[in-house]
Protein backbone atom coordinates (compact mmCIF):
# COMPACT_ATOMS: atom_id res chain seq x y z
CA UNK A 1 0.00 0.00 0.00
CA UNK A 2 1.57 3.25 -1.02
CA UNK A 3 1.17 6.50 0.82
CA UNK A 4 -1.47 7.83 -1.54
CA UNK A 5 -3.70 4.78 -1.17
CA UNK A 6 -3.28 4.95 2.59
CA UNK A 7 -4.36 8.58 2.68
CA UNK A 8 -7.26 7.82 0.39
CA UNK A 9 -8.27 4.89 2.54
CA UNK A 10 -8.10 7.04 5.68
CA UNK A 11 -9.89 9.92 3.99
CA UNK A 12 -12.80 7.78 2.88
CA UNK A 13 -12.73 5.00 5.44
CA UNK A 14 -12.61 7.06 8.64
CA UNK A 15 -15.52 9.40 7.88
CA UNK A 16 -17.53 6.54 6.39
CA UNK A 17 -16.79 4.43 9.44
CA UNK A 18 -17.76 7.14 11.88
CA UNK A 19 -20.89 7.92 9.90
CA UNK A 20 -21.77 4.24 10.01
CA UNK A 21 -21.06 4.11 13.74
CA UNK A 22 -23.15 7.20 14.37
CA UNK A 23 -25.96 5.83 12.25
CA UNK A 24 -25.80 2.52 14.07
CA UNK A 25 -25.91 4.10 17.51
CA UNK A 26 -28.80 6.32 16.45
CA UNK A 27 -30.63 3.28 15.12
CA UNK A 28 -29.98 1.36 18.33
CA UNK A 29 -31.11 4.29 20.43
CA UNK A 30 -34.23 4.65 18.36
CA UNK A 31 -35.13 0.96 18.61
CA UNK A 32 -34.50 1.19 22.34
CA UNK A 33 -36.80 4.20 22.54
CA UNK A 34 -39.46 2.32 20.61
CA UNK A 35 -39.45 -0.61 23.01
CA UNK A 36 -39.25 1.52 26.14
CA UNK A 37 -41.16 4.75 25.65
CA UNK A 38 -39.93 7.84 27.41
CA UNK A 39 -41.34 8.15 30.86
CA UNK A 40 -44.12 10.68 31.11
CA UNK A 41 -43.07 13.23 33.68
CA UNK A 42 -45.50 14.31 36.36
CA UNK A 43 -46.91 17.80 36.47
CA UNK A 44 -46.43 18.30 32.75
CA UNK A 45 -49.21 19.33 30.42
CA UNK A 46 -50.39 16.23 28.58
CA UNK A 47 -53.06 15.07 26.16
CA UNK A 48 -53.14 17.85 23.60
CA UNK A 49 -53.95 18.15 20.80
CA UNK A 50 -56.18 15.37 19.55
CA UNK A 51 -59.30 15.02 17.42
CA UNK A 52 -61.26 11.78 17.59
CA UNK A 53 -64.80 10.45 17.43
CA UNK A 54 -66.59 9.15 20.54
CA UNK A 55 -68.63 5.96 20.77
CA UNK A 56 -71.85 7.87 20.08
CA UNK A 57 -70.39 9.13 16.79
CA UNK A 58 -69.72 12.71 17.96
CA UNK A 59 -66.50 14.44 16.88
CA UNK A 60 -64.49 15.42 19.95
CA UNK A 61 -61.15 17.05 20.67
CA UNK A 62 -58.97 17.49 23.74
CA UNK A 63 -60.89 20.75 24.32
CA UNK A 64 -64.10 18.71 24.81
CA UNK A 65 -62.71 17.40 28.10
CA UNK A 66 -60.52 20.36 29.10
CA UNK A 67 -61.08 21.64 32.63
CA UNK A 68 -62.15 18.19 33.82
CA UNK A 69 -60.33 15.47 35.68
CA UNK A 70 -59.73 12.64 33.24
CA UNK A 71 -58.75 8.99 33.38
CA UNK A 72 -57.20 8.00 30.07
CA UNK A 73 -56.54 4.42 29.05
CA UNK A 74 -55.29 3.21 25.66
CA UNK A 75 -56.29 -0.22 24.39
CA UNK A 76 -58.36 -2.13 21.87
CA UNK A 77 -61.56 -4.14 22.01
CA UNK A 78 -59.98 -7.40 20.76
CA UNK A 79 -57.67 -7.41 23.77
CA UNK A 80 -58.96 -10.18 26.06
CA UNK A 81 -56.96 -9.59 29.20
CA UNK A 82 -55.13 -6.34 29.91
CA UNK A 83 -57.81 -3.97 28.55
CA UNK A 84 -60.79 -5.55 30.32
CA UNK A 85 -58.66 -5.64 33.47
CA UNK A 86 -57.89 -1.93 33.17
CA UNK A 87 -61.47 -0.99 32.28
CA UNK A 88 -62.89 -3.21 35.03
CA UNK A 89 -60.56 -1.50 37.48
CA UNK A 90 -61.63 1.95 36.26
CA UNK A 91 -65.27 0.89 36.71
CA UNK A 92 -64.59 -0.25 40.28
CA UNK A 93 -62.77 2.99 41.04
CA UNK A 94 -65.64 5.10 39.64
CA UNK A 95 -68.07 3.12 41.77
CA UNK A 96 -65.80 3.78 44.76
CA UNK A 97 -66.29 7.54 44.36
CA UNK A 98 -69.35 9.41 45.57
CA UNK A 99 -71.81 9.93 42.67
CA UNK A 100 -71.08 13.68 42.45
CA UNK A 101 -67.34 12.95 42.43
CA UNK A 102 -67.67 10.27 39.74
CA UNK A 103 -69.77 12.68 37.67
CA UNK A 104 -66.82 15.10 37.65
CA UNK A 105 -64.44 12.51 36.17
CA UNK A 106 -64.23 11.76 32.45
CA UNK A 107 -63.04 8.18 31.88
CA UNK A 108 -61.69 7.91 28.32
CA UNK A 109 -60.82 4.67 26.57
CA UNK A 110 -58.81 5.52 23.45
CA UNK A 111 -58.60 2.72 20.89
CA UNK A 112 -55.22 2.09 19.28
CA UNK A 113 -56.92 -0.21 16.77
CA UNK A 114 -58.45 2.19 14.25
CA UNK A 115 -58.81 -0.66 11.75
CA UNK A 116 -61.29 -2.66 13.82
CA UNK A 117 -62.69 -0.35 16.49
CA UNK A 118 -65.59 1.57 14.99
CA UNK A 119 -67.56 3.96 17.24
CA UNK A 120 -70.43 1.50 17.09
CA UNK A 121 -68.28 -1.46 18.23
CA UNK A 122 -66.77 0.71 20.98
CA UNK A 123 -70.28 1.60 22.13
CA UNK A 124 -71.23 -2.02 22.72
CA UNK A 125 -67.87 -2.63 24.36
CA UNK A 126 -67.34 0.25 26.78
CA UNK A 127 -70.89 0.35 28.11
CA UNK A 128 -70.33 -3.22 29.33
CA UNK A 129 -67.90 -1.85 31.87
CA UNK A 130 -69.40 1.40 33.10
CA UNK A 131 -72.17 3.69 31.87
CA UNK A 132 -69.96 6.79 32.07
CA UNK A 133 -67.03 5.30 30.15
CA UNK A 134 -66.31 7.11 26.88
CA UNK A 135 -64.81 5.16 23.98
CA UNK A 136 -62.76 7.15 21.46
CA UNK A 137 -61.47 6.11 18.06
CA UNK A 138 -60.56 7.70 14.73
CA UNK A 139 -58.49 7.26 11.62
CA UNK A 140 -55.02 5.74 11.89
CA UNK A 141 -53.54 9.26 11.79
CA UNK A 142 -55.94 10.62 14.43
CA UNK A 143 -55.21 7.73 16.76
CA UNK A 144 -51.46 8.16 16.21
CA UNK A 145 -51.76 11.84 17.11
CA UNK A 146 -53.77 11.08 20.25
CA UNK A 147 -51.15 8.55 21.36
CA UNK A 148 -48.43 11.12 20.67
CA UNK A 149 -50.29 13.72 22.73
CA UNK A 150 -50.19 11.34 25.71
CA UNK A 151 -46.61 10.17 24.95
CA UNK A 152 -48.15 6.74 24.62
CA UNK A 153 -46.80 3.83 22.58
CA UNK A 154 -48.56 1.21 20.48
CA UNK A 155 -47.64 -1.17 17.72
CA UNK A 156 -49.44 -3.69 15.57
CA UNK A 157 -48.19 -7.28 15.97
CA UNK A 158 -49.29 -9.84 13.35
CA UNK A 159 -50.31 -13.19 14.88
CA UNK A 160 -50.73 -15.25 11.71
CA UNK A 161 -53.15 -14.97 8.81
CA UNK A 162 -54.87 -11.60 8.88
CA UNK A 163 -55.15 -11.58 12.66
CA UNK A 164 -53.09 -9.29 14.85
CA UNK A 165 -52.86 -7.90 18.33
CA UNK A 166 -51.76 -4.46 19.48
CA UNK A 167 -49.07 -3.94 22.04
CA UNK A 168 -49.68 -0.69 23.83
CA UNK A 169 -49.01 1.48 26.84
CA UNK A 170 -51.21 0.00 29.54
CA UNK A 171 -51.01 2.77 32.14
CA UNK A 172 -54.13 4.56 33.28
CA UNK A 173 -53.33 8.28 33.08
CA UNK A 174 -54.78 10.58 35.70
CA UNK A 175 -54.99 14.04 34.16
CA UNK A 176 -55.92 17.04 36.26
CA UNK A 177 -58.45 19.71 35.36
CA UNK A 178 -55.39 21.88 34.59
CA UNK A 179 -54.31 19.38 31.87
CA UNK A 180 -51.34 18.33 34.00
CA UNK A 181 -50.41 14.68 34.31
CA UNK A 182 -51.01 13.91 37.98
CA UNK A 183 -49.85 10.31 37.79
CA UNK A 184 -51.10 6.87 36.90
CA UNK A 185 -53.54 4.41 38.36
CA UNK A 186 -52.16 0.90 38.73
CA UNK A 187 -54.55 -2.06 38.56
CA UNK A 188 -52.36 -3.83 41.11
CA UNK A 189 -53.15 -1.18 43.70
CA UNK A 190 -56.24 -1.54 45.87
CA UNK A 191 -59.23 0.43 44.58
CA UNK A 192 -59.20 2.85 47.58
CA UNK A 193 -55.68 3.95 46.55
CA UNK A 194 -56.96 5.00 43.13
CA UNK A 195 -60.01 6.63 44.70
CA UNK A 196 -57.71 8.69 46.94
CA UNK A 197 -55.58 9.75 43.95
CA UNK A 198 -58.68 10.91 42.07
CA UNK A 199 -60.00 12.77 45.13
CA UNK A 200 -56.71 14.65 45.34
CA UNK A 201 -57.04 15.64 41.68
CA UNK A 202 -60.68 16.60 42.18
CA UNK A 203 -59.80 18.56 45.32
CA UNK A 204 -57.27 20.67 43.51
CA UNK A 205 -59.73 21.07 40.63
CA UNK A 206 -62.31 22.44 43.09
CA UNK A 207 -59.63 24.67 44.61
CA UNK A 208 -58.66 25.94 41.15
CA UNK A 209 -62.30 26.70 40.32
CA UNK A 210 -62.74 28.53 43.65
CA UNK A 211 -59.64 30.63 42.97
CA UNK A 212 -60.90 31.48 39.50
CA UNK A 213 -64.19 32.55 41.06
CA UNK A 214 -62.34 34.73 43.60
CA UNK A 215 -60.45 36.42 40.82
CA UNK A 216 -63.57 37.10 38.79
CA UNK A 217 -65.54 38.54 41.75
Amino acid sequence: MNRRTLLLALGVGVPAGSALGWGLSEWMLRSKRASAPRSSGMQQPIGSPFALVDHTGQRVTDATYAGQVRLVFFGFTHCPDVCPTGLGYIAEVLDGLAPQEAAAVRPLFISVDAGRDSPELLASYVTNFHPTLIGLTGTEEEVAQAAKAFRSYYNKVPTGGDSYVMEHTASIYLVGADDMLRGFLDTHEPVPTAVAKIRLALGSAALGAAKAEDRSS
Partner: protein
Amino acid sequence: MKRRTFVAALPCMVASGASAQAQPGLFAENAWSRPALARIGTAVVYLSLRNGGSQPVRLLGGSTPVAERVEIHESVVEGRVARMRARPGGVVVPPGGVIRFEPSGLHLMLIKPAADLKAGQGFTLTLNFENGATFAVPVQVAMREPAAGHGAAH
Protein backbone atom coordinates in the same frame (compact mmCIF):
# COMPACT_ATOMS: atom_id res chain seq x y z
CA MET B 1 -51.05 -9.88 46.65
CA LYS B 2 -53.41 -10.00 49.55
CA ARG B 3 -55.77 -12.27 47.66
CA ARG B 4 -52.95 -14.64 46.75
CA THR B 5 -52.11 -15.15 50.38
CA PHE B 6 -55.75 -15.65 51.14
CA VAL B 7 -56.19 -18.33 48.49
CA ALA B 8 -53.03 -20.11 49.55
CA ALA B 9 -54.02 -20.02 53.18
CA LEU B 10 -57.48 -21.44 52.66
CA PRO B 11 -57.19 -24.23 50.11
CA CYS B 12 -59.82 -26.40 51.78
CA MET B 13 -62.41 -23.66 51.77
CA VAL B 14 -61.63 -22.90 48.14
CA ALA B 15 -61.84 -26.57 47.25
CA SER B 16 -65.32 -26.77 48.73
CA GLY B 17 -66.48 -23.88 46.55
CA ALA B 18 -65.55 -23.43 42.90
CA SER B 19 -63.16 -26.31 42.51
CA ALA B 20 -62.80 -29.36 40.35
CA GLN B 21 -60.38 -32.26 40.53
CA ALA B 22 -58.87 -33.84 37.42
CA GLN B 23 -56.75 -36.54 38.88
CA PRO B 24 -55.67 -37.25 42.42
CA GLY B 25 -54.22 -34.09 43.85
CA LEU B 26 -54.83 -31.79 40.87
CA PHE B 27 -57.37 -29.03 41.39
CA ALA B 28 -58.72 -26.17 39.33
CA GLU B 29 -60.06 -23.37 41.48
CA ASN B 30 -62.01 -20.17 41.01
CA ALA B 31 -62.47 -20.47 37.26
CA TRP B 32 -64.10 -17.32 35.92
CA SER B 33 -64.54 -15.48 32.69
CA ARG B 34 -65.44 -11.94 31.68
CA PRO B 35 -68.47 -10.86 29.69
CA ALA B 36 -67.48 -10.82 26.01
CA LEU B 37 -69.01 -10.02 22.64
CA ALA B 38 -69.02 -12.80 20.04
CA ARG B 39 -68.44 -10.27 17.24
CA ILE B 40 -65.18 -9.15 18.82
CA GLY B 41 -63.97 -12.72 18.77
CA THR B 42 -62.02 -13.09 22.00
CA ALA B 43 -62.82 -14.03 25.58
CA VAL B 44 -60.80 -15.11 28.55
CA VAL B 45 -60.77 -17.62 31.39
CA TYR B 46 -58.84 -17.27 34.61
CA LEU B 47 -58.33 -20.02 37.16
CA SER B 48 -55.80 -21.50 39.55
CA LEU B 49 -54.30 -24.94 39.05
CA ARG B 50 -53.04 -26.59 42.20
CA ASN B 51 -50.95 -29.71 42.00
CA GLY B 52 -50.98 -31.66 45.26
CA GLY B 53 -49.45 -34.70 43.56
CA SER B 54 -45.82 -35.76 43.41
CA GLN B 55 -45.32 -35.34 39.65
CA PRO B 56 -45.20 -32.16 37.57
CA VAL B 57 -48.23 -31.75 35.32
CA ARG B 58 -48.19 -29.86 32.04
CA LEU B 59 -51.33 -28.08 30.88
CA LEU B 60 -51.36 -27.93 27.08
CA GLY B 61 -54.62 -26.13 26.42
CA GLY B 62 -58.28 -26.83 26.42
CA SER B 63 -61.58 -26.73 24.63
CA THR B 64 -65.05 -25.45 25.31
CA PRO B 65 -68.43 -25.65 23.59
CA VAL B 66 -68.70 -21.84 23.79
CA ALA B 67 -65.69 -21.02 21.57
CA GLU B 68 -63.85 -22.30 18.51
CA ARG B 69 -60.58 -22.88 20.35
CA VAL B 70 -58.67 -22.24 23.54
CA GLU B 71 -55.06 -21.09 23.73
CA ILE B 72 -52.72 -20.36 26.61
CA HIS B 73 -51.49 -16.78 26.47
CA GLU B 74 -49.56 -14.54 28.75
CA SER B 75 -49.75 -10.77 29.06
CA VAL B 76 -46.45 -9.21 29.92
CA VAL B 77 -46.23 -5.61 31.03
CA GLU B 78 -42.71 -4.28 30.54
CA GLY B 79 -42.12 -0.67 31.40
CA ARG B 80 -45.62 0.63 30.85
CA VAL B 81 -46.23 -1.42 27.70
CA ALA B 82 -48.49 -4.47 27.60
CA ARG B 83 -47.65 -7.28 25.20
CA MET B 84 -49.22 -10.66 24.67
CA ARG B 85 -47.32 -13.88 24.18
CA ALA B 86 -48.70 -17.24 23.13
CA ARG B 87 -47.56 -20.18 25.24
CA PRO B 88 -47.93 -23.05 22.76
CA GLY B 89 -45.74 -25.32 24.90
CA GLY B 90 -48.20 -25.02 27.75
CA VAL B 91 -47.55 -24.44 31.40
CA VAL B 92 -46.10 -26.81 33.99
CA VAL B 93 -47.63 -27.01 37.45
CA PRO B 94 -44.85 -28.29 39.71
CA PRO B 95 -45.62 -30.84 42.42
CA GLY B 96 -46.99 -29.01 45.42
CA GLY B 97 -47.25 -25.83 43.34
CA VAL B 98 -49.98 -23.52 42.13
CA ILE B 99 -50.14 -21.80 38.74
CA ARG B 100 -52.45 -18.83 38.62
CA PHE B 101 -54.10 -17.71 35.43
CA GLU B 102 -55.06 -14.19 36.45
CA PRO B 103 -55.69 -10.72 35.03
CA SER B 104 -52.65 -9.15 33.34
CA GLY B 105 -50.74 -12.42 33.43
CA LEU B 106 -51.30 -15.97 32.25
CA HIS B 107 -54.77 -16.52 30.82
CA LEU B 108 -56.71 -18.99 28.74
CA MET B 109 -57.85 -17.17 25.66
CA LEU B 110 -61.08 -18.29 24.03
CA ILE B 111 -60.98 -17.61 20.32
CA LYS B 112 -64.19 -16.94 18.40
CA PRO B 113 -66.86 -17.35 21.07
CA ALA B 114 -70.02 -18.76 19.48
CA ALA B 115 -72.25 -16.30 21.35
CA ASP B 116 -71.91 -13.34 23.71
CA LEU B 117 -70.82 -14.30 27.21
CA LYS B 118 -72.96 -12.58 29.81
CA ALA B 119 -72.36 -12.01 33.50
CA GLY B 120 -74.08 -14.68 35.58
CA GLN B 121 -73.79 -17.31 32.90
CA GLY B 122 -71.75 -20.49 33.35
CA PHE B 123 -70.01 -22.82 30.92
CA THR B 124 -67.62 -25.74 30.90
CA LEU B 125 -63.95 -25.54 29.96
CA THR B 126 -62.14 -28.83 29.40
CA LEU B 127 -58.45 -28.66 30.22
CA ASN B 128 -56.04 -30.92 28.34
CA PHE B 129 -52.88 -32.15 30.00
CA GLU B 130 -49.77 -33.63 28.46
CA ASN B 131 -50.26 -36.94 30.29
CA GLY B 132 -53.52 -37.42 28.43
CA ALA B 133 -55.73 -36.38 31.33
CA THR B 134 -58.58 -34.02 30.53
CA PHE B 135 -60.82 -32.30 32.96
CA ALA B 136 -63.98 -30.34 32.85
CA VAL B 137 -64.00 -27.15 34.89
CA PRO B 138 -67.13 -25.10 35.57
CA VAL B 139 -66.54 -21.45 34.65
CA GLN B 140 -68.54 -18.51 35.94
CA VAL B 141 -68.92 -15.35 33.83
CA ALA B 142 -68.55 -12.26 36.02
CA MET B 143 -67.54 -8.61 35.72
CA ARG B 144 -65.06 -9.01 38.54
CA GLU B 145 -63.07 -11.83 39.99
CA PRO B 146 -65.40 -13.72 42.31
CA ALA B 147 -64.22 -13.65 45.91
CA ALA B 148 -62.06 -16.67 46.71
CA GLY B 149 -64.05 -19.59 48.05
CA HIS B 150 -67.41 -18.18 46.97
CA GLY B 151 -67.00 -18.43 43.22
CA ALA B 152 -69.93 -20.70 42.46
CA ALA B 153 -72.17 -19.59 45.28
CA HIS B 154 -73.27 -16.23 43.87
